[in-house]
């Protein structure tokens, strides 16, 4: 029998315990619907409030988090989440506005959304922005839908191929797969750029476009990005920018200026919306002039221009050839847009540039200090992240072992096994919100681990040793597939 560290909420339940109670009804009673429309049982836990608080407090202590320490997960931009954002997004005026209220009663929300659209356009160099997509992946899907709609509108129906570099995030091909298009993989060259020869060969009149992450997942800014875009545009394709790595570009270069036609933003990476243990994200999309008429509906616009002493009236508008609605209502307003708006307002243009510059400095500093110990296959000035190999000549140690051992040093591991084009990849993104002392301690831990890999490999292979939990049996989880702490037929037993 497995040891139980923390019982489930169902196991903590005891019949008859009461938690939060509601007031008595203040209206005359009406009979319930007929019995055959009612449920007979409600197999949910019964606990007092203190039981609930202690349970979730204990669970919280099992988590590593940015508030507690360094979290250099490549491609995830785990920066510090400013506390003021937690207050602004909970202002009653934001919390308690219903998405279907008349626009005259929510001008504060609509101004915020309108300005957010304008700011994101300015930051990225695009002509239009939708705030609707719920996360980066949904933003990507919206972008690909717009690319498809653009070609379709022009009667260019034979375009079915999307060009995607081998270093791309899995969401890129998956977004394309959701539309029944096919993927053509484009290799990287020895400097980590898109291989121009392979790209030229793939460009023809069946190409929808290309999806490029730049800086790419190796942390490299593509040195021929303008040539890449020219080739794709040259064959009639559109250029999608995966904005996952935008943190490196704030105030440095605008993707729209480079010629990208469409890009999603990850407000939960670049603009400090907290990751929340896996979400919610927030994934607005910017587009160039070719695609503005295809943006998802609705957008926020000015419905009545301002006059002498009356401010403009903000409301919703639908683009001419909109691809439609991506989700219910208007996007991740409260938890996403309000936090990101607060963050951008506090940084201003110079502060945004500082973010990118220090994110890039921190990554290059780590790269410079680790270069002699770990092999860095694409070794040049990186942007906000870099990738090194987590393996040593003649040693059984793998990237995963190094990652697990880092936990014993109280660091969150880097991203493992991505991008796929580097063996035993360790992808490190420090972000701008770490000081030099933290970076130095992290370097020292990695150097020590490299030493341990030679002298005491079992220390790495068994790691983590000093955490509350050890390595998990993932095969057992997938084979036995216990996804629920009760099954309908088991509930009587659990109770």
């Amino acid at each position, binding site marked *: 029998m497995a040891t139980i560290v923390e019982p489930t909420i169902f196991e903590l339940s005891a019949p008859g315990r009461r938690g939060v109670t509601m007031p008595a009804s203040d209206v005359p009673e009406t009979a319930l619907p007929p019995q055959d429309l009612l449920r007979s049982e409600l197999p949910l836990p019964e606990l007092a409030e203190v039981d609930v608080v202690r349970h979730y407090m204990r669970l919280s202590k099992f988590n590593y988090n940015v508030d507690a320490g360094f979290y250099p997960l490549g491609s995830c931009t785990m920066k510090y989440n400013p506390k003021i954002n937690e207050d602004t997004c909970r202002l009653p005026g934001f919390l308690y506005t219903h998405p279907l209220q008349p626009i005259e009663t929510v001008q504060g929300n609509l101004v915020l959304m309108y300005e957010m659209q304008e700011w994101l356009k300015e930051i990225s160099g695009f002509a239009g922005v939708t705030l609707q997509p719920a996360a980066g992946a949904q933003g990507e899907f919206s972008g690909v839908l717009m690319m498809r709609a653009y070609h379709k509108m022009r009667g260019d129906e034979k375009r079915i191929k999307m060009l995607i570099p081998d270093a791309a995030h899995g969401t890129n091909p998956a977004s394309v797969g959701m539309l029944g298009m096919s993927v053509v993989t484009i290799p990287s060259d020895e400097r980590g750029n898109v291989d121009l020869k392979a790209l030229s060969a793939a460009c023809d009149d069946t190409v929808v476009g290309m999806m490029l992450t730049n800086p790419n997942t190796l942390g490299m800014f593509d040195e021929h990005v303008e040539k890449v875009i020219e080739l794709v545009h040259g064959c009639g394709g559109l250029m999608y920018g995966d904005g996952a790595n935008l943190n490196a570009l704030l105030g440095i270069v605008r993707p729209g200026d480079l010629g990208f036609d469409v890009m999603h933003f990850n407000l939960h990476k670049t603009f400090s919306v907290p990751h929340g243990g896996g979400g919610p994200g927030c994934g607005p999309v910017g587009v160039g002039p070719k695609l503005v008429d295809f943006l998802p509906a609705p957008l926020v616009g000015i419905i009545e221009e301002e006059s002498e002493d009356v401010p403009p009236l903000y409301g919703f508008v639908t683009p001419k050839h909109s691809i439609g609605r991506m989700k219910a209502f208007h996007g991740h307003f409260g938890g996403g847009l309000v936090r990101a708006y607060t963050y951008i307002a506090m940084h201003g243009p110079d502060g945004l540039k500082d973010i990118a510059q220090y994110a890039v400095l921190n990554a290059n500093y780590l790269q410079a200090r680790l270069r002699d110990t770990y092999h860095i296959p694409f070794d040049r000035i990186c942007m906000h992240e870099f990738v090194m190999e987590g393996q040593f000549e003649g040693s059984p140690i793998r990237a995963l072992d190094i990652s697990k051992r880092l936990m014993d040093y109280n660091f969150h591991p880097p991203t493992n096994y991505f991008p796929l084009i580097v063996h035993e990849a360790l992808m490190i993104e420090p972000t701008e919100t770490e000081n030099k002392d933290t970076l130095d301690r992290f370097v020292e831990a990695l150097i020590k681990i490299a030493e341990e890999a030679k002298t005491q490999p079992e220390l790495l292979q068994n790691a983590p040793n000093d955490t509350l939990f050890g390595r998990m049996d*993932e*095969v057992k989880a*997938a*084979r036995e597939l216990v996804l629920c702490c009760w099954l309908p037929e088991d509930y009587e037993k659990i109770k």
Partner: protein
Amino acid sequence: MNTPTNLKYAQSDEWFDPANGAVGITDYAQNQLSDIVFVEILVEEGDSIEAGKPIASIESVKASSEIYAPASGKVSAVNKALADKPETLNSDPFGAGWMIKIEGSASDSLIDSTAYEAHCASRNH
């Protein structure tokens, strides 16, 4: 690595038994995929299939893979037991782990066991 000599092999790691038309994945393939947790056979008995077209989809703890037909012809049998015991593909890829049987002709591109072993060895570097 086990590579029975009576079978023919595809570069994409399927085997084909010319004697009875059985098709499966190789020992090399199951080892690369590691612990297999899901098998979905995409064809049914009686379907006509073409060599090179997908016949099954496999997911392991860490990877997923499409399986392609090594022969063209008619599907004469489907191993339905695999759905409940996908781990059979790991434990007995050339025996109880057969996936379908095809009545028809093997693809011209299939290779023998010696050539297949060389093909696997070349990928281990």
